[in-house]
C-alpha cells in the first residue's frame, strides 16, 4: 500500500527516474525488515530475548522493527510524500543512508549473533534469512542515491500548543529510549550491543536529517516549557523503574553526570585542566560521612543534612582555594600536574589517617561504613515509600534528592557561564594574554572557576556518601575500572562535549552504562575507553554534543548560526594577504 503511494508521488517528483526508484526500493526494504520481525528468527529461546515467535516481534527484533519503520518513513519523506517533509529538513540522502545502514547493522548483528551463539546458520529459521536480505536491500539502495544535502528548510508554521506537544513527546520518547537501555538484560551482552548500534545510527540519522537542529531551535524558543519537560522527565524516571538495580544505575548516573558537569565549568568554560577533580568529590563525601552520625566516624556528631551539605561544600571550597591559589598564578600545565598530585595525595592521606600511620580521622582503608540513611522532615531515605501507587526504593529516594543538586549545578553552569564572569573564563581560555590586557585579573577569575568547581563536587559528594552509605578511599583514584575516578569524569566531559550542559550528562551516562551492561568488557574496559577516546578525537573532537563555538572551530564549513552575508568580496584580498 505504501509503495503505491510512493509510486504516484514519484512520477510527480521533479527528480524522477533512478533516485525515485532507489528510494522506493529503500522504503520497500524497510517495510520488509518490519515484516520480517513478525517471523521467528531462530528455533530456541536460548538466544537472549526469545526470537522464536511467529506473529509478534520480541527482543532484538524490536530494534529492527523500529529502525525499519524509520527507514521507510525517511525514504517516503525523500520521495516528497506529503506530510513527511518535516522528517528531513536538511536533506534526506545522508539521513536515509544512516538509517538504512542502522537497520542493516542491527539486523545483521542479531542474525550473526544467533549463528555465533548457537553454532551455525542451521539455527536460522526462515525469518532470519528474510530479515538479512530485507536489511541488506535498503542499505545498498540508499548508498546509490545522489547526495541532496541542503540548508535547513523553513519550518512549517505550527500553533504553539502543537510545538509544546512536540517538546513533550520528544522528552517522553527520550525517557523511553533511556529506560530501554537501562532495563536491557545485563546477563548477555547482545541486547545492549544491539541497542547501542540502533540508537547510535538512529541518532546520527536524525542529526543529519536536520531534525535535531530543528528540535533544538524549538527548545530554545520555549525555554521554560523545555525546562519543565526536562524536570518532569527526570522526576518521572524513578517512577518508571521496577527493579532496585535500575534505580541504582539511575542514581549513580545522576551523581556522576552532575560531577562531570561541575568539572565542565573548570575544564570546558575556564579551560583549566583538572586531573584530580574526583578528590573534591571525596572531600565532600568524607566530610559528610564524618559529621552524619556514622558509628565508626571519629567525630561524634550527627548534623542535619543541610548542615552536612554546607560543611562538605565549605571544606571542598577550602581545598580548592588551597590547591588553586599557588598554581593558578602560573600558566601552562602546572595546574594539571598539581591537581594530578593532589588527587593522589588525597587518597593516600585518607589511607594513612587511620590512627597508626597518622592521626585517627578516616579509619584508613576501612573507610567509614554504615552512614545512617538521611531523614528529612520525617522522610526516611532508607525506606521504601509508596507514592502515587509506585514504590520508591532507597535509590529512587536518593535519585530525587540528587536531582535537586543536579538542578543547582545546571543553574550555576548556565547562569555563571552566561555572565561577565563566564565571558571572562572563556576569554582566558581563548587567549590569556589578551584577556589580561583587557583588564581581566586572570588569577582571580581562574581561582573562582576552580573553587566553584571544587565546591559543586563537594556538594555532590555529600549526597554520594549517603547513597553509598559508606566511603572508602579506593574510589577516589586518578584512573580505574570503576567510576568515579578523575579520568572517567574528564572523559565524560570530553566525550559529551566541552562547554555544554548536555554533553557531560550524556557522556557520563554512556561511560557508566556501557561497562555496566557489557560485562565482557570489564577486563578490557580501560583499553576500550582509550580506543573510544582516540577515535573520538580523530572524528569528532568537539564531543557528541558540540558547543556552538567548538562546532565552528573544528569544522570550518558548517557556519550554522551566523547570519548569511556576502561579506568577503571587498576584503578578500586583505584576508588572503594577511594569512599568507
Amino acid at each position, binding site marked *: 500500500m505504501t509503495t503505491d503511494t510512493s509510486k504516484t508521488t514519484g512520477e510527480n517528483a521533479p527528480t524522477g527516474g533512478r533516485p525515485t526508484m532507489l528510494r522506493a526500493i529503500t522504503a520497500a526494504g524497510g517495510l520488509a525488515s518490519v515484516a520480517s520481525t513478525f517471523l521467528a528468527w531462530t528455533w530456541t529461546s536460548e538466544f537472549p530475548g526469545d526470537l522464536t515467535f511467529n506473529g509478534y516481534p520480541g527482543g532484538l527484533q524490536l530494534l529492527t522493527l523500529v529502525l525499519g519503520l524509520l527507514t521507510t518513513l525517511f525514504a517516503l519523506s525523500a520521495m516528497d510524500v506529503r506530510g513527511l517533509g518535516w522528517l528531513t529538513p536538511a536533506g534526506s540522502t545522508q539521513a536515509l543512508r544512516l538509517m538504512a545502514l542502522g537497520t542493516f547493522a542491527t539486523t545483521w548483528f542479531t542474525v550473526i549473533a544467533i549463528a555465533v551463539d548457537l553454532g551455525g546458520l542451521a539455527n536460522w529459521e526462515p525469518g532470519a534469512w528474510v530479515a538479512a536480505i530485507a536489511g541488506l536491500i535498503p542499505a545498498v539502495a540508499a548508498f546509490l542515491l545522489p547526495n541532496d544535502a541542503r540548508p535547513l528548510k523553513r519550518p512549517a508554521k505550527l500553533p504553539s500548543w502543537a510545538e509544546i506537544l512536540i517538546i513533550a513527546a520528544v522528552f517522553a520518547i527520550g525517557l523511553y529510549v533511556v529506560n530501554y537501555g537501562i532495563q536491557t538484560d545485563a546477563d548477555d551482552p547482545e541486547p545492549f550491543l544491539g541497542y547501542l548500534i540502533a540508537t547510535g545510527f538512529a541518532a546520527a540519522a536524525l542529526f543529519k536529517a536536520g531534525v535535531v537542529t530543528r528540535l533544538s531551535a524549538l527548545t530554545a524558543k520555549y525555554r521554560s516549557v523545555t525546562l519543565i519537560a526536562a524536570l518532569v522527565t527526570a522526576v518521572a524516571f524513578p517512577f518508571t523503574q521496577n527493579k532496585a538495580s535500575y534505580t541504582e544505575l539511575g542514581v549513580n548516573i545522576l551523581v556522576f553526570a552532575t560531577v562531570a558537569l561541575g568539572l565542565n565549568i573548570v575544564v570546558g568554560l575556564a579551560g583549566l585542566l583538572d586531573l584530580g577533580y574526583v578528590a573534591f568529590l571525596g572531600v565532600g563525601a568524607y566530610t559528610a560521612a564524618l559529621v552524619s552520625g556514622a558509628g565508626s566516624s571519629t567525630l561524634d556528631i550527627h548534623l542535619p543534612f543541610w548542615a552536612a551539605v554546607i560543611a562538605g561544600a565549605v571544606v571542598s571550597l577550602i581545598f580548592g582555594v588551597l590547591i588553586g591559589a599557588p598554581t593558578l598564578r602560573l600558566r601552562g600545565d602546572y595546574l594539571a600536574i598539581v591537581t594530578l598530585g593532589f588527587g593522589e595525595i588525597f587518597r593516600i592521606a585518607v589511607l594513612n589517617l587511620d590512627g597508626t600511620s597518622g592521626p585517627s580521622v578516616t579509619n584508613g582503608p576501612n573507610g567509614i561504613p554504615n552512614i545512617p540513611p538521611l531523614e528529612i522532615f520525617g522522610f526516611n531515605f532508607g525506606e521504601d515509600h509508596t507514592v502515587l501507587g509506585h514504590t520508591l526504593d532507597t535509590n529512587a529516594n536518593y535519585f530525587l534528592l540528587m536531582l535537586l543538586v543536579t538542578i543547582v549545578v545546571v543553574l550555576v553552569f548556565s547562569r555563571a557561564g552566561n555572565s561577565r*564572569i563566564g565571558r571572562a573564563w572563556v576569554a582566558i581560555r*581563548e587567549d590569556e594574554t589578551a584577556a589580561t590586557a583587557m583588564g581581566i585579573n586572570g588569577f582571580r577569575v581562574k581561582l573562582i572557576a576552580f573553587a566553584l568547581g571544587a565546591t559543586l563536587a563537594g556538594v555532590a559528594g555529600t549526597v554520594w556518601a549517603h547513597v553509598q552509605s559508606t566511603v572508602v578511599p579506593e574510589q577516589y583514584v586518578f584512573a580505574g575500572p570503576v567510576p568515579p575516578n578523575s579520568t572517567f569524569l574528564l572523559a565524560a566531559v570530553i566525550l559529551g562535549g566541552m562547554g555544554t550542559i548536555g554533553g557531560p550528562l550524556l557522556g557520563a551516562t554512556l561511560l557508566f552504562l556501557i561497562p555496566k551492561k557489557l560485562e565482557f568488557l570489564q577486563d578490557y574496559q580501560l583499553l576500550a575507553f582509550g580506543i573510544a577516546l582516540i577515535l573520538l578525537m580523530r572524528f569528532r573532537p568537539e564531543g557528541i554534543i558540540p558547543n556552538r563555538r567548538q562546532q565552528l572551530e573544528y569544522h570550518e564549513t558548517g557556519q550554522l548560526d551566523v547570519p548569511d552575508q556576502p561579506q568577503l568580496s571587498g576584503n578578500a584580498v586583505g584576508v588572503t594577504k594577511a594569512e599568507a
Partner: protein
Amino acid sequence: MTTTTSPVLNANGVTMRFGGLTAVRSVDLTVNSGEIVGLIGPNGAGKTTFFNCLTGLYVPTEGSVSYKGTVLPPKPHLVTQAGVARTFQNIRLFANMTVLENVLVGRHTRTKEGLWSALLRGPGFKRAEAASKERAMELLEFTGLAHKADHLSRNLPYGEQRKLEIARALASDPGLLLLDEPTAGMNPQETRATEELVFAIRDQGTAVLVIEHDMRFIFNLCDRVAVLVQGQKLIEGTPDVVQSDERVIAAYIGTPFEGAPGQEEAAEVEAAEAQQGTRPSGAPKSTTARTEDGQ
C-alpha cells in the same frame, strides 16, 4: 579642539633587556591629553616591546611609566583598569567568541558583577548586563561592526578584525589608547577609514599612541612623531620635522643619495609609502608574533 598640555602618559627612561639584547634603551615619551602621537621605526626597533612595557605585559628592566601622574603597576589588568587600553600587532581577538562578546569582555574593568550576582540574577545584574550590551553595541556602531555583532570574530575579514580590536579596547573607556600597527594588512580604503576612526577617538577625548609603518597614515594623523631605531629614540617632533630628518630617512630607506635635494627624498618617501600600502604585513607580523607568543 582644545589641546591642554596635561600629560596622560609619561614614560621615563624605559629600558627592556632580554638577556644580552637590549630591545628598548632608555626611552622617554610623553603623550598629552587630546594628542595623537606616532611611534615609527624599522622592524625590530623595539616598538612593540615598548608597548608591552607600557601595558605591563613586560616588566621594564629600568624606568617607570606613569598615567596621569600615578605610576602604573606592571600588571596588565591594572594598567587597563587605570585607563590604558591597547590593541595587538598580531591580532589577538577571542577567536571563538562573537563580536559582541569580544567587546563585552572589554567592558570587564568597568563592570563589577561577580559570581554571586550572576547566580542570583537580581535586578542589578540585569541592569548592568543591559547597560554593558548597550555600550558594546554603541562601540560596534562607532567602529561600523554593528551588523556583525553575532558573528564569531574568527570569521571576520582581516580589516574588520583590526577594527574589532579597537572596539574591544575602547570598551574599557580608556584615557589613552595604544594601537600597534592598526592598518597592517589593510587596503587603502580601509586605511583611510581607520584614519577617520582614530580622529574620532581622539575627538571623544582619548589620547592615542600609534605604531605604524604607513608613513602617509602617520604623518596625516599625528600631532607628534617619535622615531625608534634599535631600541633608542632617535628623534621626536612634529611630522614635518621628522619627515625631513636625514637620520630617519637613512634608518628607513637606507643612506640617501649624496647631496640629494629634499624634493627627491620626499619622492622616495612617497614611493616607500606606496609600497607600504600594498605590501602584506607578513614580515613585521612574523617578527612580533614570535616575540609576543614567547611570553
